[in-house]
Structure formats: C-alpha cells, structure tokens
C-alpha cells in the first residue's frame, strides 16, 4: 500500500552524485517520511547499495515499520537507534538489524558504531543516512554538533561512503546549518512543502 507518490526528482538528482559525496536533504515536518523514502528507495533498489540508517528522530522499529507499510524491505540495512535507549523497554525490538546507542549526546559512539558496522558488512557500495541533524540539535550544543558534522562527513567521504543527511532547516541552529551547507557537496531541497 503506497500512501504517497515518491519524488522522482530526488532519484534523478541521486544519479548525479558520486560515492564520496555528502548530500544534505532538506525537508519539512510534514513531508519528512516521503522525502526519506524517496531518497532511500532509489539507493536500495536502483543503486543496490547497503548502508547504515542512523535514527535520531524516531525509534528504528518505527522507521522499519514505516518502510514495511509501503512494501520496502529494509532488512539488509543496519539501523543505529539513538532514541529507544531513553525509553524504558524501548530496546526490545523484533529486528536483528537494529543497534542501540545510549543517547544522541554520544556522538563519537555513533561514529564508531557506524564504522564498526561498515567494517562488518560486505557491501561493495554503502551509504550512511543520518535522520536527522535537527533531532541531534535538540541534545547537542551548536559548536559541538557543527564540529561533529565536519568530522562525520569527512570520515565517510574519505572512505567513499555516500553520506546523506536529513535536515529540517527551520529547526536547526544557524551555526549548524551554515556549516552543513559548507561541508555538504550536494543539496536536495524539499524544505518547502507545497500544498496543492
């Protein structure tokens, strides 16, 4: 069952990027999942990539169920869940591809866990999908988050791992936003939701 149409423009734009790109994907509150799906589905299906999905906005189980609801199998990508450890009983999930980090404040742990997962997978081409900068900004101080994104993006660009960073710009501090604009090589802007 498909509840929305995928944005073909995103898939088209993805054909233009290389593996060492860092893409900032801007979305709004109401279209976040549509934009996420429109970005992730081509990576999984058309480009046959593996990867790591870092979920800081919602628990990984909820994200997986969202994809299952639209008929997309995400069992071969790994999830790093930064939300559920903060909820009592939140880490009891029926998915073996979910890893937990205690808190969104443990930014270095997220980076190391991602590197660990990449070392243990045998995909030829990988992506990292960070969902989302604005969620990390709730917990982390601006300068630290800006510094982190700098390290994060450069680490994966160096390793030729496609970095996709979801962001709701009006919920992101100006310092972080301007740094993100600086570090990312590409921008997919769906920040303005057009109501037909």
């Amino acid at each position, binding site marked *: 069952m498909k509840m929305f149409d995928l944005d073909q423009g995103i898939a088209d734009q993805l054909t233009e990027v290389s593996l060492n790109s860092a893409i900032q994907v801007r979305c709004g509150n109401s279209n976040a999942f549509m934009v996420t799906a429109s970005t992730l589905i081509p990576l999984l299906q058309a480009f046959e990539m593996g990867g790591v999905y870092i979920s800081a906005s919602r628990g990984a189980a909820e994200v997986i169920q969202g994809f299952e609801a639209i008929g997309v199998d995400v069992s071969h990508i790994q999830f790093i869940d930064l939300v559920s450890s903060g909820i009592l009983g939140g880490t009891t999930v029926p998915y073996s591809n979910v890893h937990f980090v205690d808190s969104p404040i*443990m930014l*270095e742990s997220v980076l*190391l866990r991602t590197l*660990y997962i990449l070392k243990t997978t045998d995909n030829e081409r990988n992506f990292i999908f960070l969902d989302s900068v604005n969620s990390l900004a709730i917990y982390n*101080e601006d*300068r630290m988050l800006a510094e982190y994104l700098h390290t994060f993006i450069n680490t994966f660009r160096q390793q030729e791992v496609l970095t996709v960073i979801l962001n709701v710009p009006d919920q992101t501090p100006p310092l972080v936003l301007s740094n993100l604009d600086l570090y990312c090589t590409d921008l997919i802007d769906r920040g303005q939701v057009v109501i037909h």
Partner: protein
Amino acid sequence: MQPAGQYSRDRCITGVHGLDEILRGGIPYGSTVLASGTCGSGKTTLGMEFLVRGADAGEACAHFTATEPSVKLLENIRQFKFFDVKMVDSGLINVFDMDVLYSWLGLEKSSFDLDDVHSLIKAIVDIVNTIGVTRLVIDSVTTLCYKIKSEQLIRDFLFTLGKKLATLGCTTILIAEITSATENAHWSSFGVEEAIADGIIVLGDVERMGHLLRFLQVVKMRGTSHSRAKHAIELTPLGVMLTPMLKWGAVSDTHNRWGA
C-alpha cells in the same frame, strides 16, 4: 615468529584500530608502557587485544593476570572476531595466574622484600626468554605492587623488570588501576610507575550529560612522536576502536560546558 632480541622493525604494531596512527606506527620495540585507567575504562580489553593481534601476526605473547582467573580471561578473549583458539593451542598466547606463580616461587605472603622481588623478576624474565615472548601484559601492576611495601622497592622492581624485558626485545604493557583520570590525577597508584615507564596510555571516562564516554589518551611515549589528544573509544568484537574526541565535547559537566 622472530626470536627474542632480534628485530628488523623498530615498532611493535599494536594492531589496535587507530592506536598505531596515534603512535605514528606503533610502540617502539622493547618499551614498557603503562596503561592506566579507571574501572571499566577498557584497559584489560586493550591489553588482550594487544596480545591477540600479536599472536595473529605470529608473535609469542604472555599475559600475567592478578585480577581475574586465567580461565575467565580466556573466555573474554573469545569475544574478538580475530581470535582463534589455535593461538592458545599453538602456544602463541600464554596466560599465567599470578597466584600460581607466587605459589611456585613460594611467595604466598602479604608483602615482598628485596629477595622476593628479584625472584619474581627472574621468574617473569625466564618465562619471557624461554617462550620467546615479544608481547607481554601484566594485569595489573597495581595489584602486584600492593605487595611491595616500599616505594623504592617498587621503583627498583619496575626499572629492573623493564630493563631486562627491553633487552629481550619484549614490548610490555603494565596495566594500572587509578581512581580518577582527570587532568590533576596521577597516572598510577604509587606515583613511581609513571616515572619509570617509557610510555603512558590513560583510559577513562568523560561524563557528558549523565552519560559516560570512554576515552584513551597517549600522555607519553618515548622514542616516537605521537598525538596527545583525547580519543573516544568503543569496545567492539573487532577490538578497541578510536576516533578523536570532539573538542567541544571533551570537557565534563563540572567545567560548565553546558552553561549550568
């Protein structure tokens, strides 16, 4: 495996992800390195990985354990994906209980005098020499030093042991327990270990908004330039993994980083 004392390389490549980069290639051969850390900071894991990586490269390794039984230690080594039980079977990894060693030497007593210390040094050096050990871990030197009552004797013990092991080309990690790894802390319990060691690697925790983040910092390493920055670490089945700690995140809550 190269015989003890004959090396073509000048660095002992630890094999620990990121540590060799920090050390610009590894620990200079024959060094005695103090790995000091608070409880749960990953010192034993670091020591175990150092040995398993060595065994994986064909080096003979020895672990003297005073903090946990050798059986338990060997069970913990199995967590590493790069560990193979053949490393133990073929004699590349050798684990010795300090209690058993004390028993062999007739040192089942609460404190050691000069003669006891010298017979302990001789026993360790003999084992290293006989097996051809090139990597050694003593876990922990703090527990061992508790039995040596005089500071001068501790100094003598560590200096003599370090010197003899260096002569044999054995790179040694002495694990030390400390209660705090903050800026003002000592890197060892007795204060003398840090002065004798060729290198000091500190492991501890940074508290960030109620969460503990493990860190590793190379404070000193003779014979090589090295990074002195704090690195965040994770203990994984692939071993210890490191990444530079965020500069804006390396200060704990008490230093007002969060504007309290």
